[in-house]
Structures are given as structure tokens and as C-alpha cells.
């Protein structure tokens, strides 16, 4: 067992691109779920808006990459209206049902043969990130940083950009939630009727929260798309939302630092478990007597099983997460 390598990978995961895009997506989800109490199970679709926004501008329209940001915002608003208009006046779980369904349909749409020309079908879109790569001041081939934080020039640039975005959005959400707007939003989570009796248009506030959270989620998709250099429809499956949710609950709902720390922790634990199990099964399946405990093809399933167990246990025993405040977590939708 190569513990040195495992530990290096684990530490690196805390700052890697996966933690970054999870953190940004979780900040967005936190605005919706943590602060407003909107159960958005379709954050993956909002992320896809960003990724496909970038991909489609460069590939289909043939205009500059950065037009992808307004296009992505347009996608987000359309999507938020689609899921929000019918459900935001209703009980909380209707939004959950509609968002989970919409996210799945969005994924089916972008991978369909019918819209192959625009979204690239199952192959997705690649070759759009040239303009972004030209901005990179670092030598793409060279290695930067110190052990264990060593990255190639390209990753290093993405990581810098990504953490800058994380910082910007954290600051933004922190300020937003201190503002009068944020107090109304938190009031809606605690008692919708009380806020309504103060003359606030709850529906409109919920919609704004959904769109703002969606736009932040969109940037998570953009970071992912720029890092991978390719947009694949299956990167935006339903489960991605749930993993982001797990990271968010782990760090603590309704806390700005919660989303960031939660995402880092999520990936540290995930990479540790993944690396450990892969090392364990590298030289054949692990057996106790005749009973095969685990083999290498099953490592992925075990990791995600832990994620599910973790989400259940956290929600049951520590819904405020590791750092959260229990008073902020009085979610109840009836």
C-alpha cells in the first residue's frame, strides 16, 4: 500500500478542481436550499446551462467564448422560470419533484440525436476553450507549486481562477444575506406566512433566490467545462446534485463557509476512500476465506454508497452539518 501517494492525492483533492466546482455549486444551492428553503434537486441542470452556454457559443454560433456567460444566464433564467412558475406557490416538495424531472429532461435533450448539431449528442462538445487557454500566463507543460500541491500550468491557472470565483461568490452571498433582501429570504424559510403578512411578495423573492442560486451554479458548470475542455451530458446526471447537496449539508447549511469547507471535506473523504479501496483491490479482489469482500470494479459503488449513508446520517443526527448552527436549520415544509 502506497500511503505516501494516497495522502498526497487526498491533500491535493482539498484544493483541486473538483472541490472548486462543488464549492461554487454548493454556494448556489445554499442560497436556494440553505437560506430560502427551496428544495432544488436540479442544480446539475443549472450547471449544464453554464457548460453548454460556453460550448454552444463557440461551437454552434461561432462567436467568442465569453458570450457563453450571457447565454448561460439566459438559459438559467428560462430554466428557473420553467421550474419556478408552476411550483413556487405550492408546498416545498413540488419544486423538488419538478426540478429533479427537469434536470433529467435537460440531460436527455442535450444528449439526443435530434439536437446533435447544437449540443453534440452523447459525444458532447469540445474544442471551445482556446480563448481561455490563451489567457493562461503559466507554461502549460511545466509543474507549479510545491508537494503535495503540484499542478500542471493549465490546472494551476484553472485552480487560481476557480478559487477566485469561490471567493467572489462567498463574499457576494455573505453580503447578500446581511442585506434587507437576505433577511426577507431567511424569513421566508422560517415562516412564509409571516413574511407575506408584512406585505412582501414571497413568490417574487423565491424566484429571485432560485435565479441567483442558479446563476452561481452555472459558473460551477463553466469551471468544470473549462477544466475538462469538453462538455459531456453525463457529467450532469441527477446524482451530481445530490453529491453537491451532501457536501453542502456536510459543511453546514445557511453558512457561507459551510459550502466551501463542505466541498473540500467531501472530496478529501471521497478521494481518501477511493484511493484506499483501489490500492486494496489492485492486486486482485479482497477475500476473507471464500467470501469476496470487494473487487476493483466495485470500488466506485462503495464510495457512492458511503456518500448516501453520510447524507442520511448527517440529516438525521447533525442536520446543521459540522459547523452549522442548529437554529438556522428549522426546515419544515408543511
Amino acid at each position, binding site marked *: 500500500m502506497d500511503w505516501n501517494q494516497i495522502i498526497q492525492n487526498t491533500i491535493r483533492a482539498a484544493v483541486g478542481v473538483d472541490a472548486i466546482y462543488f464549492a461554487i455549486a454548493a454556494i448556489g444551492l445554499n442560497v436556494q436550499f440553505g437560506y430560502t428553503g427551496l428544495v432544488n434537486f436540479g442544480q446539475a441542470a443549472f450547471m449544464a446551462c453554464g457548460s453548454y452556454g460556453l460550448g454552444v457559443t463557440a461551437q454552434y454560433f461561432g462567436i467568442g467564448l465569453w458570450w457563453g456567460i450571457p447565454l448561460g444566464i439566459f438559459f438559467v433564467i428560462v430554466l428557473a422560470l420553467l421550474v419556478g412558475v408552476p411550483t413556487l406557490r405550492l408546498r416545498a416538495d413540488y419544486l423538488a419533484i419538478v426540478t*429533479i424531472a427537469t434536470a433529467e429532461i435537460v440531460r436527455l435533450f442535450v444528449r439526443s440525436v435530434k439536437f446533435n448539431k447544437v449540443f453534440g449528442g452523447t459525444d458532447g462538445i469540445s474544442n471551445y476553450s482556446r480563448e481561455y487557454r490563451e489567457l493562461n500566463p503559466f507554461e502549460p507543460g511545466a509543474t507549479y507549486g510545491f508537494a503535495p500541491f503540484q499542478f500542471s500550468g493549465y490546472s494551476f491557472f484553472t485552480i487560481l481562477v476557480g478559487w477566485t470565483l469561490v471567493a467572489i461568490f462567498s463574499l457576494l452571498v455573505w453580503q447578500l444575506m446581511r442585506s434587507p433582501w437576505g433577511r426577507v429570504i431567511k424569513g421566508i424559510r422560517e415562516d412564509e406566512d409571516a413574511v407575506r403578512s408584512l406585505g412582501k411578495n414571497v413568490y417574487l423573492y423565491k424566484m429571485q433566490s432560485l435565479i441567483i442560486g442558479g446563476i452561481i451554479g452555472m459558473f460551477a458548470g463553466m469551471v468544470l467545462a473549462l477544466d475538462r475542455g469538453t462538455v459531456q451530458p453525463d457529467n450532469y446526471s441527477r446524482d451530481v446534485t445530490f453529491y453537491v447537496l451532501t457536501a453542502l449539508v456536510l459543511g453546514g447549511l445557511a453558512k457561507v463557509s459551510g459550502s466551501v469547507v463542505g466541498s473540500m471535506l467531501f472530496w478529501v473523504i471521497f478521494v481518501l476512500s477511493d484511493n484506499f479501496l483501489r490500492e486494496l483491490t489492485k492486486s486482485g479482489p479482497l477475500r476473507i476465506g471464500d467470501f469476496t469482500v470487494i473487487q476493483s470494479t466495485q470500488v466506485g459503488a462503495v464510495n457512492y454508497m458511503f456518500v448516501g449513508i453520510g447524507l442520511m446520517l448527517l440529516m438525521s443526527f447533525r442536520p446543521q452539518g459540522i459547523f452549522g448552527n442548529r437554529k438556522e436549520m428549522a426546515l419544515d415544509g408543511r
Partner: protein
Amino acid sequence: MKKPNRSKFSRSSRFGLGFGSLFLIFFGLLSVSGVGASDSAASDYSIIASVQNQTLVQGVTSREPVANASVTVTTPGGEVIGTATTDEQGLCTIAVPTRDDYLITLDIESLPDGLQLIDANKFQVSITKDLFTTNTKRVTFFTGQSGTAGATETERILQRLADGIRLGLIIAMCSVGLSLVFGATGLTNFAHGEMVTFGGLMAFFFNVNLEIPILISGPIVIFMGGLFGLLFNWGIFARLTKRGIGLISQLVVTVGLSIMLRNIYLFQFGGRTKQLASFSKQTNLEIGPIGITPRDLTTAILGVIILVSVALFLQRSRLGKAIRAVSDNVQLASATGIDTRKVIRVVWFAGGALAATGGIFRGLDEQVSFSMGSDLLFLMFAGITLGGLGSAFGALIGGFSIGILVEMSSLLVPSELKVAPALFILIVVLIVRPQGILGKSQRVG
């Protein structure tokens, strides 16, 4: 409330006990049974290429494997990793060194005479390393005709209607439990799809591993499905409700449960779809213009019988009336002397049993896979929303309509998008009549 001296610690440890034992019982159940001990690959990573010839008979596409086709895996740079020819199952496995980007090319010249690719441009598939969700990545090439040649408009509509009725029966069966649990406890159970999968996988275990015919093992699986539902309630949700955990938090717990169970299934069963042994080979019966296998006809008739008896049970029996009373209004029902906790247990049992039945039927209809239930979850939600959340009859009507709608809509939209109209219905219903056809408006807002 009754025992104020009970400390918080003991309560949560009791809870943890239930939680843990649920997990252990379930995991033990599966690992002892060793459902379809998954096939391990020799190398860490491999690509499985499959070549299938697609033919269209009576509006139903059937696929046959193509042997002796040559498939090559290269890096995007053009370096050849390996070449293989397909076997009798139309499959070949090519080991690849790591999880990376590859190009998979089918040699068109090697296809048997007369076969062509459906889409002549699809002789090459590129995959990226992200697509390796497990250690094997499967790629399929289709030859033969596609589309809808050969059948007249009426025949196609009737055929789709017949398929729609079958799907509708399955969805109705699965969603009754979802709706009843919602009515009785207020919980939206996102792990309900996994209860359906449980039925399918258990049917596979009895039918294929133990070689017990489905007609005998079916009732056992249905009973086990009911116990599985009870286990959900006893192990988790009854305890959470007792501890005063809110419904939205419980909803998130169901999401975690769903992820956990789906991955346990994946762990035990593997990522492939597999066929049940009973009734796997059947020839079409021609009823007028519709082609239907005796198996499908039998399951359809059985499905109708089951659903009618569920409806009669709810309408006529004392227990059924109690269930409807509880799902109408828990406080009032409780005030009239109905033991609501007992009713909730019954509802979980019945929901689990019906979901398992749906899983068996779905497994016979299509194939068994670890995600067969969660793939249907969205259609179930659309069905119960259309029928009215919390109403059992609504779930029957709504689920049935959604099944027909989905199959019929594949006449108009590409079949890969045939579930999209269900979303459309879902949104329209929520705008126009959010309580659904049979729902009560007071629980909506």
C-alpha cells in the same frame, strides 16, 4: 413526551441501532444471496464493444448480435491499443491501460454481407475518461434499418397504445405506494424507485440464481417487498418522525437512502442489464394489427386484476377505509379512533409490496438493472401529481395515463425524448390544477 427522563444520548443511540440494523439486515440479505455475482474483468479497465443488428417487426424493434465484426481501440492520437472481433453475443472486450480518452472504431468492411450501419457516420465513437463510471465502458454499434418503415399509421398507433397500457399498469402499480405514504405521513419518498428495483432484483435472484419459476417466486418477492417497505418505516422514518425531524429533512434522508441502495444494488448486481429466465423467449401473438407476446398479455391481465383488487380493497374493506381516512386527514382519523401508526405500517407494507410487483413486471417487460426503478421515479411523480398527491385512486388513474402518454408521444417526438411530454403534463397540471384530478386543494399551498 411520555418518558421525559430518557436522555438525548440514549434516544439517538436507539435510533442509531435501528438505522444500523436496517443497513445490516439489508446488506446481509443481499450479500448472502449474492445476487448475480458480478463478472470481474481481468484488467483494471476495459472497453466492451457491442455490435447489434436492429430489425423492425410489427413496430417493435428487436436486436440480434452480429458476430465476427472487427473493432479497434485507439488513442485520440491514433496509437492502436487493441483490436478484437465480436463473439456470438456480438460482444468483444478490449483491455485498456488506464482510464483515459479513447476512440473506438468499427471496421465496416468486417461486417457480414448486406449489413450496414444505421447511421453511416457512427462507425467511430470517442469516449473520454469521465465516461468510465465503472471500470468497464460499453459502446454499441447498430446496424440494420431504423425508424418506422413497414407499419401503417393505425397499426403504429395501436401498437403504441398496447405498449402504453403495459407501461401505464406498471407505473400505476408502483406509484400507489408512493402516494399512500405521502398521504399518511406527508413524506415524499425519493427512494421509492429503489423499492421497485428491489422487486426486480429479488425476482432475478430467485428466478435465475435459484432457478425457481417466476410464478412461484413472484409471491415470495412481493411479500419481501412489503417487508422491505416496513423496514424503511421501522428502521428510519418512524424514528425520525418520533424525534421530530421535519419533513423536508426526511425528504433529504430519502435521497441519501436512494443513493445508498442504488449503489448497493450496483455493488451486488453489477452495472449491466440482465434478463429474467422465465418467459425470456416468446413469439408474438397477432391480435389484429397488434403484436404482443403471451407473457406481456399475461402480465397486462394480471396487472389489471391486481389494480382492481387494490381499488376494491381501498373502497370496500375496513382497513382500506381507514387508510383513505388517514391519508385524508391524520388528526381527524386519529380522533375517530383509527390507530394511525398501524395504518402507516400497513401503508408502507402495501406500498413496498406493490412496488416490488411493479419491479417484477418491469423486469419481465424489459430487463433487470440496478437503476430500473429510479429510472421510473420521475414518471411515478408525474403520475401521482396528475392524479393528486396523497390520493390512491389518483395514483392509479394518473400513473396509468402517464404510461399511455409516454408511449403514445413517441409517435410524435424522438423516442429518446418520449418522457419529455410527461414533464410538460406535470408543469401544466401544477399551473392549472395543482391538486391534480382527485386531490384536495388544502394540502397544496
